[in-house]
């Protein structure tokens, strides 16, 4: 069984609601658990909130591509944007061991992405950020 969906978003945070609805629809149609649907929504929210909030230096409209494909129990998500180069794979890891009082509050979003997905690969190609995310769906 395989299924796929491709979504195009503008670089506005309000577009993330549309994406969340699409993920829910795709997940439910393919029998994902509520936990998996939530986690995929979260991963895309974290990554795209970063891109939209910090990735653009002009006020122009930009398009962000999100493609999801499920084949043989493997979910592959491909993100494509023309924002400033940013490689989440190399982003610093938050220190989750340090005492509460000294714990820094940043960096958690990318940490969640890496923990939830089985594989995260980044490529900068022709002025675009390409991110490939893979997760086994049980």
């Amino acid at each position, binding site marked *: 069984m395989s299924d796929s969906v491709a979504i195009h978003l503008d670089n506005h945070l309000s577009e993330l609601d549309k994406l969340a609805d699409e993920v829910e629809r795709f997940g439910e149609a393919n029998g994902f658990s509520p*936990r998996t649907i939530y986690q995929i929504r979260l991963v895309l929210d974290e990554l795209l909130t970063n891109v939209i909030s910090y990735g653009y230096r002009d006020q122009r409209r930009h398009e962000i591509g999100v493609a999801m494909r499920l084949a043989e129990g493997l979910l592959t998500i491909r993100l494509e944007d023309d924002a400033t180069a940013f490689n989440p794979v190399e982003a610093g890891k938050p220190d989750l061991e340090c005492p509460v009082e000294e714990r820094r*509050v940043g960096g958690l*979003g990318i940490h969640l992405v890496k923990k939830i997905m089985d594989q995260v690969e980044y490529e900068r190609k022709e002025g675009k950020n390409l991110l490939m995310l893979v997760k086994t769906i049980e």
Partner: protein
Amino acid sequence: MELVEKTSGDVIILELNGRLDSNTSKLLEDKVMEVLGQGSKKLLMDFADVDYINSTGLRVLLLALQQLKKNQGKLILCSIKDYMKEVFEISGYTEIFPIFSDQSEGLKGFA
């Protein structure tokens, strides 16, 4: 997101409802600061009706915990939906927050 404030003895209970994300977390942050400003040191956050949280929401919880600890206070969380628990774990939050199954258990955590 909606927020209902209740009290039980000297414990302030915040019942959260809806999504705790980049759009709504500021609401909770402001509420927490208001409650702390009034000198409350025992705060219970009830997640029974929270269906989504992201890193912005998680960050507000950490800030609240840090503020309370500074004032020898205590923050307890309860009723987190099963499907969201793993995200609290991978955030390291199950180590730093007392988390209880429901409100009455959570209140016992202050004893």
